[in-house]
């Protein structure tokens, strides 16, 4: 191909589209996350039964393809005769809401402290980093359990607890990036131009670290969803009768030894698919958005 033709080809508006080929996208994780998001949004329309009220005469019904099951309850019923499918559908909503809000909360807190610590330096840096070290020294999950046990179970408490438990990773990484950024020309020019520290942090530093924050957030999503399920499983998370997946697994223990497998398999499958997709998406984003984080 001649050189002008090559230049014309590369600079055509279609070049960008050509560059991003279909196989570059993590299709399956995006599809799973998309489906779970839609299910979470339209839970009211999709669920065939009320997830919190059951019929006691219809307890422990197996899924429809097993002997004794019926198409009335596609995935069977639990120990209170509640429809497992409906609870799964509403559980998706709880997992998604808790997962996303906790990650955003932790991300906002960690990014804010990371920027403050990295840019201001001095005693602010010392205080924030010592705090981060202390936090990192604690087994995160045990600390979350401790907080949840004293604060008491509720969905929003869990969001706050997971937020204050998992902000440290953001603070560490973001601080490191800010340390490198603040030596760059554009930041020095901004200082020369008379921008206040606050303006520099907001308009010059923040936009440059937001990619890393997003990558970390996508990697944290899986961790946070498992943490929420764990807290609910232990009885310090989302309180009953709400249909959190961790809580469903905890309830399912009652039927485990007599072989009521659907109470254990389905909610766990939901958690696994969601976390798997989040992890795959996070890995993909890490490579795409932030080459520096590839080593993480």
């Amino acid at each position, binding site marked *: 191909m001649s050189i002008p033709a090559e230049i014309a080809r590369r600079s055509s508006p279609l070049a960008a589209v050509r560059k991003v080929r279909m196989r570059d996208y993590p299709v399956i994780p995006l599809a799973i996350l998309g489906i779970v998001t839609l299910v979470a949004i339209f839970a009211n329309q999709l669920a065939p039964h009320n997830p919190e009220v059951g019929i006691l005469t219809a307890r422990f019904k197996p899924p429809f393809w097993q002997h004794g099951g019926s198409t009335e309850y596609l995935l069977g019923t639990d120990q209170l005769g509640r429809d497992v499918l409906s609870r799964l559908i509403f559980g998706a909503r709880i997992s998604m809401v808790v997962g996303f809000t906790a990650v955003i909360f932790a991300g906002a807190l960690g990014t804010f402290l990371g920027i403050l610590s990295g840019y201001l330096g001095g005693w602010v840096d010392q205080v924030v980093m010592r705090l981060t070290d*202390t936090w990192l*020294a604690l*087994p995160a999950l045990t600390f979350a*359990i401790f907080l949840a*046990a004293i604060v008491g179970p509720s969905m929003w408490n869990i969001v706050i607890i997971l937020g204050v438990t998992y902000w440290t990773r953001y603070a560490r990484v973001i601080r490191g990036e800010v340390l490198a950024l603040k030596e760059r020309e554009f930041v020095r020019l901004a200082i020369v131009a008379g921008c206040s520290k606050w303006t520099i942090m907001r308009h010059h530093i923040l936009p440059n670290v937001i990619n890393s924050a997003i990558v970390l957030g996508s990697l944290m999503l899986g961790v946070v969803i*498992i943490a929420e399920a764990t807290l609910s499983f232990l009885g310090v998370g989302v309180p009953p009768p709400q249909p959190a997946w*961790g809580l469903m697994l905890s309830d*399912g*223990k009652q039927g485990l030894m007599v072989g009521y497998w659907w109470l254990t398999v389905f909610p766990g499958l939901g958690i696994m698919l969601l976390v798997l997709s989040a*992890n795959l998406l996070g890995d993909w984003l890490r490579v795409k958005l932030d080459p520096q984080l590839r080593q993480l």
Partner: protein
Amino acid sequence: MSDYVTRQIDGGAPRSPPATAARAMPALLHLLHLPMTRFVVRRTAYALLSLFLLSLTIFFFVRVTGDPAMLLVEPGASPDDIAAIHHQFGLDRPLWVQYWLFMSSLFHGDLGQSFYYQTPVMGLYLSRLPNSIELAAAAMLFSLVIGIPAGILAAVNVGRFWDSIGKLFTLLGLSMPSFWVGLLMILLFSVYLGWLPSSGAGTPWHLIMPAFALGWYFAAAHMRLTRSSMLEVLGSEYIKLARIKGLPQTLVIAKHAFKNALIPVLTLAGINLVLMINVAVVVETVFAWPGIGRLLYEGIAFRDFPVVQGVVIMGGAMIVTVNLLIDIVYALIDPRIRLGS
């Protein structure tokens, strides 16, 4: 001193100078200026600060998020009862006095009295600790036995079949909650097949399922690190030299690469062993394993607050100490660490 120096120059037997008190002082001061000593002192100070902040955080959270007395009394207790409890536990005193008492009893190894068992928390903790260590050791063994060979296999076959299998294993290990793995195993091996006991402790059979459920996540982490560490080593000059010399592939991998690639993995395993002891709460709950995780769960279930607090404090202290020790050992091995920071 001059006497000592001359003897050294004359080639006489080197002998340390007589250690009088007057001469020991400058020596001590000199020691303080050594980079290694400075590093250890500073790092220990940070560790103590971490522990102090940890105790402050726990103390603060307990008092701010609610009245600890309310955890002790039945709902609807009279104000007099609550006041009595306040007085009994010193909750009516100023906060800093309470903190002082809390800290001084901590220093004496006193974690308070369990509400439920009516015995010291420290005793309960120590009686459960061996079980947790046993479970963690078994899970660690499992995670290394699977993780290291799988990591090597993946590194030697990058981008090929075994690497993909390894990736799948890692991904599942990181994506499946350990308690779900445990529940599925109970379903399969206890309920359907009847091969393994579903709960309790005592025989090696009891150990298999909890160790697997706890270890999978860590096996995934160890495999990842072994793979990347092996890849790094395999790309180094001395491996190339070994290959140019014509050594067979197995010898290069087993003798030259493996040993060096193992160092970071074993470091991580050391940290993870301590983590395993402290994060096994869900696995211990699923299998009714009588360790400290189970103790924590009982503490939550019985609203036995001193137990919950004690387990968290001991866990934090254990991890801070191990991190400190690892940093010091690393500084001893690698001069860049003690000089660099």
